[in-house]
C-alpha cells in the first residue's frame, strides 16, 4: 500500500520535514551565499518547530495525535513511542550542535551553511534508523547518518589533522558498513525476509514455528552484524578510529560525532538486535557482556594518559559506550519479557539521553575555550580558566562531574539506572555492575585532572578573558539545565516514563 493516509503522513512527518528543512537551507544558501546569520536562524527555528511537531504527533505517554504503533509504507517504517523518543533525542542533539557550531566556525572562516545542512541530513538518517522496521531501510538510514559525518569530520579541509581524521573515519567507517551489510545479507538469505518482524518470527524458538538453533550461515551473519555495530558505537576493540577522528574534527563537530552517531547506532542496535534478533539473544549476549567490560575498562584506562582534551573525551566516550552496553547486556541476559529485560532497555535509553546532554555540554565548553583560532586542545590550556571565564569553568566542572557520575547530576542517575538493571539480572551482570563503579572511580582521576587545571592552576601569561557567543550561551544553558536538574521532580518521573514507554514498544 503506497498511498498514505493521514496517520501515515503524520508518522513520517518529522524525518521528512527535517530533510525538507535541509533542502530549504540549500536554497537559502544559494540565494544568500555567505550570510550565516539568517541561515542559522532558519535552521534553529526549523529544528525547534520540528521538535514541537514531534511532541504533538507523539506517541508519548499521555500526549500525541498518534497512539500505539503506526506503520508506514507497508511496515517498512514505524512510528511508536521508541521512534518518538529517539526522534526527540536526535533533534535535541541537532539543536545543540547548531547552537554550538557557528561561534567556533566563524572566526576560522568555515562556512556555517554547509555545516548546518550536512548536519541536518545526518540527523535525518539517525531519525530514520529509530523507526526502521526493515533491514534495507536500516542500512540506507545508517549510510545517510554516517556519510555526512565523514564530510563534517573533514570539514576544515585546510587543516591536516582534520583531513587525516576524516580519512581514517571514512575508511574504517565504510569498512564497517560493508561488514554490517554483509551480515544483513546473510540474515536475509537465511530467513528469507528483510522485514524485522519477519526475521524475528523466523528466528523464534523451534517450538513456536521458528528455526530454533542457528545454522552456520546465520551465526556468521550475526557475527558480522555484531562487529559492524560495535564499530559504529566504537566499542573496544573496534574503537581505533575514534580518537583520531575526534581530535582532528572541528570541536563542535567532535561534540556531534561523540553523541549523534553513537545514539543512532544504539537505536540501530535496539531495532536490530533487540527487535529482530531478540529471539537468538543467547547467542549474542555473551559477546555484549565481554564488549561492555572491555569497552569501559580500556576506554577509561587509556583516557588516563591523554593530554589532549579532545582525545581524552574521545576515550571517555568509549567508556560511556561500555556503560550503555551494560544495559543491553542486562536485556540480553534477563529472561525474555521479564521486568529485568525491560529495565535493561530503559537503562540504555535513559543513559543515552543523559549522555547526550552532558557530553555535548563538555565539548561546547572546549569549543568556547577555542573560539579564538590557534588555541590548542592540550589540557594545559584549561589552566587558570576560572580567572578568565568563571561561568564557563563552573559549567565545564558541572559537565565533567556529571560524566563522572556525581549525584545528583544526570550522569549519576544514568549510571544508577544501568547498575540497577544489571543487579536485577544477577549472575555475571553483578560482576559487570561492580566493574562499572570501579571504572567510575578510575574515571574520576582524569575528569578531575581537568578540574584541577581550571580551578587550581594559574593561567599562562597573557591569557585574556574569554567571551562566549550568544548562541553558545543559549546552548550551554540548555545543556546545563538538562544536566543539573535531571533529579528535580517531576523531571525524573517524566523521563523514566518516556524511557519506559519507549522500551516497552520493543516487546
Amino acid at each position: 500500500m503506497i498511498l498514505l493516509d493521514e496517520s501515515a503522513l503524520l508518522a513520517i512527518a518529522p524525518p521528512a520535514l527535517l530533510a525538507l528543512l535541509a533542502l530549504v537551507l540549500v536554497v537559502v544558501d544559494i540565494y544568500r551565499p555567505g550570510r550565516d546569520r539568517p541561515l542559522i536562524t532558519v535552521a534553529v527555528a526549523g529544528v525547534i518547530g520540528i521538535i514541537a511537531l514531534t511532541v504533538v504527533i507523539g506517541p508519548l505517554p499521555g500526549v500525541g495525535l498518534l497512539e500505539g504503533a503506526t506503520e508506514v509504507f507497508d511496515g517498512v517504517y514505524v512510528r511508536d513511542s521508541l521512534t518518538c523518543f529517539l526522534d526527540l533525542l536526535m533533534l535535541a542533539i541537532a539543536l545543540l550542535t547548531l547552537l554550538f557550531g557557528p561561534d567556533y566556525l566563524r572566526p576560522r572562516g568555515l562556512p556555517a551553511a554547509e555545516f548546518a545542512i550536512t548536519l541536518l541530513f545526518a540527523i535525518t538518517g539517525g531519525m530514520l534508523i529509530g523507526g526502521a522496521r526493515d533491514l534495507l531501510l536500516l542500512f540506507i538510514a545508517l549510510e545517510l547518518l554516517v556519510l555526512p559525518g565523514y564530510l563534517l569530520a573533514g570539514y576544515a579541509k585546510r587543516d591536516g589533522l582534520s583531513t587525516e581524521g576524516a580519512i581514517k573515519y571514512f575508511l574504517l567507517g565504510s569498512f564497517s558498513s560493508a561488514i554490517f551489510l554483509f551480515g544483513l545479507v546473510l540474515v536475509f538469505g537465511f530467513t528469507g525476509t528483510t522485514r524485522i518482524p519477519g526475521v524475528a518470527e523466523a528466528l523464534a524458538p523451534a517450538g513456536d514455528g521458528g528455526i530454533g538453533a542457528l545454522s552456520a550461515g546465520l551465526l556468521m551473519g550475526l557475527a558480522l552484524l555484531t562487529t559492524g555495530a560495535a564499530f559504529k558505537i566504537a566499542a573496544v576493540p573496534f574503537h581505533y578510529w575514534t580518537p583520531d577522528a575526534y581530535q582532528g574534527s572541528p570541536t563542535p563537530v567532535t561534540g556531534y560525532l561523540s553523541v549523534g552517531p553513537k545514539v543512532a547506532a544504539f537505536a540501530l542496535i535496539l531495532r536490530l538486535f533487540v527487535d529482530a534478533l531478540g529471539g537468538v539473544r543467547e547467542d549474542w549476549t555473551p559477546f555484549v557482556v565481554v564488549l561492555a567490560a572491555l569497552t569501559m575498562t580500556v576506554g577509561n584506562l587509556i583516557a588516563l594518559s591523554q593530554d589532549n582534551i579532545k582525545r581524552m573525551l574521545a576515550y571517555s566516550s568509549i567508556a560511556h559506550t561500555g556503560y550503555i552496553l551494560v544495559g543491553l547486556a542486562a536485556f540480553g541476559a534477563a529472561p525474555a519479557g521479564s521486568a529485568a529485560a525491560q529495565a535493561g532497555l530503559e537503562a540504555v535509553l535513559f543513559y543515552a539521553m543523559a549522555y547526550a546532554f552532558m557530553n555535548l555540554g563538555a565539548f561546547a565548553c572546549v569549543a568556547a575555550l577555542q573560539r579564538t583560532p590557534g588555541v590548542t586542545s592540550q589540557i594545559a590550556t584549561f589552566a587558570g580558566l576560572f580567572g578568565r571565564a568563571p561561568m564557563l569553568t563552573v559549567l565545564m566542572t558541572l559537565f565533567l562531574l556529571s560524566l563522572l557520575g556525581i549525584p545528583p547530576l544526570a550522569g549519576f542517575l544514568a549510571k544508577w539506572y544501568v547498575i540497577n538493571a544489571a543487579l536485577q539480572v544477577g549472575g555475571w551482570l553483578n560482576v559487570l555492575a561492580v566493574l562499572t563503579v570501579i571504572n567510575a572511580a578510575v574515571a574520576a582521576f582524569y575528569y578531575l585532572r581537568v578540574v584541577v587545571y581550571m580551578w587550581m592552576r594559574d593561567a599562562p601569561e597573557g591569557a585574556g578573558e574569554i567571551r562566549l557567543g550568544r548562541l553558545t550561551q543559549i546552548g550551554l544553558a540548555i545543556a546545563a539545565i538538562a544536566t543539573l536538574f535531571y533529579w528535580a521532580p517531576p523531571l525524573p518521573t517524566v523521563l523514566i516514563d518516556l524511557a519506559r514507554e519507549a522500551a516497552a514498544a520493543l516487546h
Partner: protein
Amino acid sequence: MAGLPLLSAVVFIPLGGALLIAFLPRERLDLIRGAALLTALAAFAVSLLLVIDFDHAAAGFQRVEVASWIPAFGIEYRLGLDGISLALVVLTTTLTWISILASFGPIRTRVKEYMVSFLILEVGMIGVFLALDMFLFYIFWELVLVPMYLIIGIWGGANRIYATLKFVLYTLVGSLLMLVAILGMAFTYQAARGTWEGAFDYEALVAFGFDPTLQFFAFAAFFLAFAIKVPMFPFHTWLPDAHVEAPTAGSVILAGVLLKLGGYGLIRFNLPLFPDAAEQWAPLIIVLSLIGIVYGAIVALIQPDLKKLVAYSSVSHMGFVTLGIFVFNEQGMAGAVLQMVAHGLITGALFLLVGVIYERTHDRTIARMGGLAGPTPVYAAVFGFFVLASLALPGLAGFVAEFLVLVGTFAFSPIAAAVAALAMMLGAAYLLWMYQRVVFGELSDFLRGLGHHLTDMNRVEVLTLTPLMVITVALGVAPGLVLDLIDAPIASLLAHVGGDSIARLR
C-alpha cells in the same frame, strides 16, 4: 513548632545562602563574609530549636518529613531525627559557623567561591545525618565530596593537588561500592515484596531482614565506604595528606564532621541493616580499631609537623569510636557517639590553634617552635586546655567518652581494653611532649626572629575558641546532655545486634 519543617530548613538554609552569595558581587568581601556567617548562624539557630523541641521519650525517628520524589522506584525525600543525628547535626552547625568565622582572616582569595563551597559542604553533611532514604542519603554523602575537594585543592598548601585527588579517589572508591550495595538491597526488597515502594526507605529495609550472603557483601561495601571516611587503619593514609594541605577551617570540618560521617554511617546503617554480618565482621573490626588506636598514637609521637601530629591523633581517637561501636553494648556505643562529639570539638579546636600559630609564623614545624608561653600567654593557655582535653583529662568531654568505651570494651574483652588503655598513655605522651616543646622553654630563635609579628590571639580567634571550650567543659561535667539524647536510639539499636554480649555484661 512541631508542624514546621525544621529539618528541611536546617538542611537547605545553607543552600539558600550559597545561592545568594553566588550572585553577590565578587569585590564586596565583607558582604560575602557576613552573608556566609549569617547563613551558618541561622542554620545553627534552627539546630538549637531542634534541641529545644526534642522529645527525649519518643522511640524511633522524630519530625519525619516525607515528600514523593521518584515513585517509579519508591524513592522518597525522607528526613528524620533521632538523638544520635541530633547530636551530630548540632556539632556540624556549631563547627561550621566557627570555621567560617575563622576563615575571615586566612582566606583572602576567591572568598566568594570559598564561602559557597563551605555552605554546600554543610548541606551535604547535615543531609547525611538526617536522610532516611538510601538514595537521598547517597546524594548527600557524595555532595560532601565536591566542595571539600575544591576547598583543599584551591585554598590548600603547597602539595594540595596531590592531597585533594587522593582524598577524592579514596572516598569515591568506597562510596561507589556502597552504591552497588544500596541498589542490591533495594532490588532484593523489590523482588521479595513485588513493589518498589519502600525499597529505599531506611526503616522498611531495617525491618526487612536480608539473607546472610547479601548481608555479608553489603556490609563489606558499606563498611569500606565508612571505614575510609573514619578513617580506620589501614584505610587512613589519605588523612594526613588531606589535613596537612587543607586550609585551617577545612581541617576543622574534615576532622570535626567529615570523619564523623563514617562513624555515623556504621552506627546508622551497618549495624541495623546487617546485624548478622556485623557480628561476623566484629572481631576483625575490633582488631583493626585497636591497631589504629596504637598505631595512630605511635606515629603521632614522631611527627615533626604540628598538623600531622594532630591528624594522626585523629586516627587514634577515631579508633575508639569504631571500637566502641563493635563491642555491641550500651557503654561502648554511648562512648562511641560521645567520642565523636568530643573529638569533633577538641580536634577541631586543636586545628584552629595550629592555624593561629601558622598565620603568624607560616610554619608548623615543632622543632622551630619553643617558649610560646612568654609572648603569647593566652594562646598557650587555650592550647594547654585543648591538649589536656585531647589526652582525656577527667572533667572534660574526651575523658567521659573514652572511659565509656573502655568500660564497654572491658566487658567484651579485658585484653582489648588493656591495649586501648595503654594507647591512652601514649596519647598523653605525644601530646604533652609536643606541648612542652612548643610552649615551654626559651623562646626559639625562629620565633624571636619574627619580632612583633608574633602577637597573641586576636579577638576573632578567641571568639572562635571560647564556645568550643565551654562545650568541652560542659560535656565533661554533664555528659548527660548528650547521653540522654542517645540513650533511646542506642537501646533500640542494640536490640538488633549483639544480644549475647549484652547478656554477658549484665
